[in-house]
C-alpha cells in the first residue's frame, strides 16, 4: 500500500474546495442550530436554490455571474421567509419536518420536466462559471512534491476558505453582540425571551435567513467548482454531512464548522483512499468488498461516526463539555 498517496489524498480532501464549501454551509447551519436552536434538516435546500439561482440567470438570460450569485442569495432569503412564516411559530420539531420535506420538494421541482427550460431538468446545467475563472490570479499549480493543487482548485479554495472565514468572523461579531445574546436566549427558552420583551419570531426569522444565505453561497460555490449542476447532487445526505461537520467541530462554537469540515473531509477521503488501496492490492479480497461498494461504506461510516460522537463527545472537538452537561430542559 502507498501510504504517502493515501495521506496526500486525505490532505487534499481536508483543504480542498469541497471542505471550504461544506464549512461555509455548516457555519450557516451553526447559526440555525448552534445559536438559535432551530432544527434545520434542509440546509441542502438552501444550497440548491443558491446554486441554481446562480447558474440559471447566466445560462438562460446571459447575465453576468455576480448577478447570478445575487439572485441565488435572494432565492435563499425567499425560501427562508416561505419556510419560516408558517413553521417558526410552531414547536421546534415541526421546523425539522418542514425543512427536510421542503429540500426534497425543491429537488424534485428543479429536476421536473416542467422546470427543464430553466434548470435543465435531470440533465442539469453546465459551463456557466467562466466569469469566475476569468479572474483566476494563479497561473501555475501549487506543487509540494507529494501534493499538488491545480490553479483552478487554488482559486476556488481561496474564494471558498475566504468566504468561510469571513462568515465565521461575521458570526463572531454577531454572537458577541446583544443581538447574539437574544439569539442564544431564544435557543435556551423562547418563553423567557418573550417575557423580557424580545420579538422571538423576528429573531428566529433573521437567523433562518442569515444561515440560509450562507448555505446559498456554499451552493453557488458548488456549481462554480464543478462547472456543472444536477439536482440529484443535492440529496438529503448533504444536510447530514453538514450536521456531522457541525457536531464534530462543536455546535455553537464560531470556528467549529471550519475545524469540523477539515477533520471530516480528512477522515472521509482517508477512508475512501485507504479502502481503494486495500482492495487494489488485494489486502481486502473482492469477496468482502469491491471498489463500487466504497460509496456505501462511506455513508455508513458517516452515520456510525455521528452516533459515536453523540454518545461519547456530544460537544464535539471544540465544544465545552461542561456546558453540555448542564441540565437543559
Amino acid at each position, binding site marked *: 500500500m502507498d501510504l504517502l498517496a493515501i495521506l496526500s489524498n486525505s490532505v487534499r480532501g481536508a483543504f480542498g474546495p469541497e471542505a471550504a464549501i461544506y464549512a461555509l454551509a455548516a457555519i450557516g447551519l451553526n447559526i440555525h442550530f448552534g445559536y438559535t436552536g432551530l432544527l434545520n434538516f434542509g440546509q441542502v435546500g438552501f444550497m440548491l436554490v443558491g446554486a441554481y439561482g446562480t447558474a440559471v440567470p447566466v445560462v438562460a438570460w446571459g447575465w453576468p455571474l455576480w448577478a447570478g450569485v445575487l439572485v441565488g442569495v435572494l432565492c435563499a432569503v425567499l425560501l427562508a421567509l416561505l419556510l419560516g412564516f408558517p413553521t417558526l411559530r410552531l414547536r421546534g420539531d415541526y421546523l425539522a419536518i418542514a425543512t427536510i420535506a421542503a429540500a426534497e420538494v425543491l429537488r424534485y421541482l428543479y429536476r421536473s420536466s416542467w422546470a427543464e427550460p430553466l434548470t435543465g431538468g435531470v440533465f442539469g446545467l453546465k459551463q456557466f462559471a467562466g466569469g469566475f475563472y476569468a479572474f483566476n490570479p494563479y497561473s501555475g499549480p501549487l506543487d509540494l512534491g507529494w501534493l499538488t493543487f491545480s490553479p483552478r482548485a487554488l482559486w476556488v479554495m481561496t474564494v471558498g476558505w475566504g468566504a468561510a472565514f469571513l462568515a465565521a468572523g*461575521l458570526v463572531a*461579531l*454577531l454572537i458577541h*453582540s*446583544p*443581538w*447574539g*445574546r*437574544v439569539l*442564544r*436566549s431564544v*435557543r*435556551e*427558552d423562547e*418563553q*423567557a*425571551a*418573550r*417575557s*423580557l*420583551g*424580545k*420579538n*422571538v419570531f423576528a429573531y428566529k426569522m*433573521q437567523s433562518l435567513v*442569515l444561515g440560509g444565505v450562507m448555505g446559498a453561497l456554499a451552493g453557488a460555490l458548488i456549481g462554480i467548482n464543478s462547472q456543472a449542476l444536477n439536482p440529484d447532487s443535492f440529496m438529503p445526505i448533504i444536510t447530514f454531512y453538514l450536521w456531522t461537520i457541525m457536531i464534530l467541530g462543536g455546535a455553537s462554537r464560531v470556528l467549529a464548522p471550519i475545524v469540523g469540515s477539515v477533520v471530516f473531509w480528512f477522515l472521509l477521503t482517508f477512508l475512501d483512499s485507504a479502502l481503494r488501496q486495500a482492495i487494489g492490492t488485494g489486502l481486502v479480497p473482492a469477496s468482502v468488498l469491491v471498489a463500487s461498494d466504497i460509496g456505501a461504506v462511506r455513508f455508513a461510516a458517516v452515520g456510525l461516526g455521528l452516533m459515536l460522537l453523540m454518545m461519547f463527545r456530544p460537544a464535539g472537538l471544540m465544544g465545552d463539555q461542561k*456546558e453540555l452537561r*448542564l*441540565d*437543559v*430542559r
Partner: protein
Amino acid sequence: MSADQATPREEPEDLVHQRAELVEEEARLQHEAPSEGASRAARALADVAAEPGVPKPDPILVVEDLTRSFGGVKAVQVDHVEVQRGTITAVIGPNGAGKSTFFNLVTGFDRPDSGRWRFDGADITGRPAYRIAGSGMVRTFQLTKALMRLTTLENVMLGATGQRGERLLTAPLRFLWRGQEDQVRQRADALLERFRLTHMRDEFAGTMSGGQRKLLEMARALMVRPSLVMLDEPMAGVNPALTQSLLGHIQGLRDEGTTVVLVEHDMDVIMAISDWIVVMAEGRVIAEGRPDDIRRNKAVIDAYLGTRRELKEDDGEH
C-alpha cells in the same frame, strides 16, 4: 431514585420546623411598623369596598369579561377586576382556580376566548407577549426559566429594553452600542448585588440552585424597568430562609413604586405582605379585599375548606 425513597420519613419534621419559622416571620412582619409603601397602599385602598370587581381609585390594570375555556371547562371567567397602582396585589385560590391561566392571558402568553384589558390606560387586548412586556408589564414563571447556557450576568443583561445592539444591522458595529452596553452591564451588576448573586456573575445559570434561579428571574424582570411585575408563585419550592428574603424583595419593589401582582395558593405566605387580595375559585373572582377582610370571608373559607376536605379523602384512599 432509591435515595429519594429512603428519606421521606425524615421530611415531616423538617417541614414542621420550616413552617414554624415561616409563621414567626409572618408575626414579625405584622408587628413591625408598616413601611412607607405599605402605608401609602393602605391609604389608597382605604375607601375601597371589599367586594369582587370593585373599582379602584388609580388602577394600573383593568380586566373586563375575560374568558378562556379548555374543552368544556371554563378555566377563567373574570367579569371585572382592577389592580391598584403601587400595591402588592395577591391572586390566591385553590389549585385549578385559574390563577395561572389568568396570568397567561393578561400577559399575552395565551389567547382568551373573549375579554378586554387595559394597562396603564392603554388597551393592550390581544397584543403579543413581547410587546406587553416591552410596555412595562413583566412576568415571571411558576417553573423558573433560567437561560441555562447563558451566564448569570448575561441573563440579567438580556432584560434591558431598547438595546441598540439587538438589531441585526447594528450588531456587528460594536462602536454603536458599546457605551449603552456598559450602562446595561452596570445596572445588571447592581441588580445582582441587590439579589446577592454577585458570586454567580460569570457562571452558567444552569449551575444555579432552584432558589437562586427564582432570584435571578426576579432580577431579570426588573431589568426591563417594569411598572407592573407579575410573579407566578415566586415562593413555590423555595426554602423558608429564601422565602423571607423573597418577601423582603417583593416589599422593596412596592416601596419603590412598582406594582406587584403575585399568584400564590398558600394563603399564609402572602397574608402578611399583600395590600390587596383577589381570591379566585373555579375561574371566577369570588372575593376581594384587604387581608383582614379575606380572613373573615365566608366564600373564601368555603373554597379553601372544600379543597382541604377533598385532600383528606384523597389521603385516606392511599
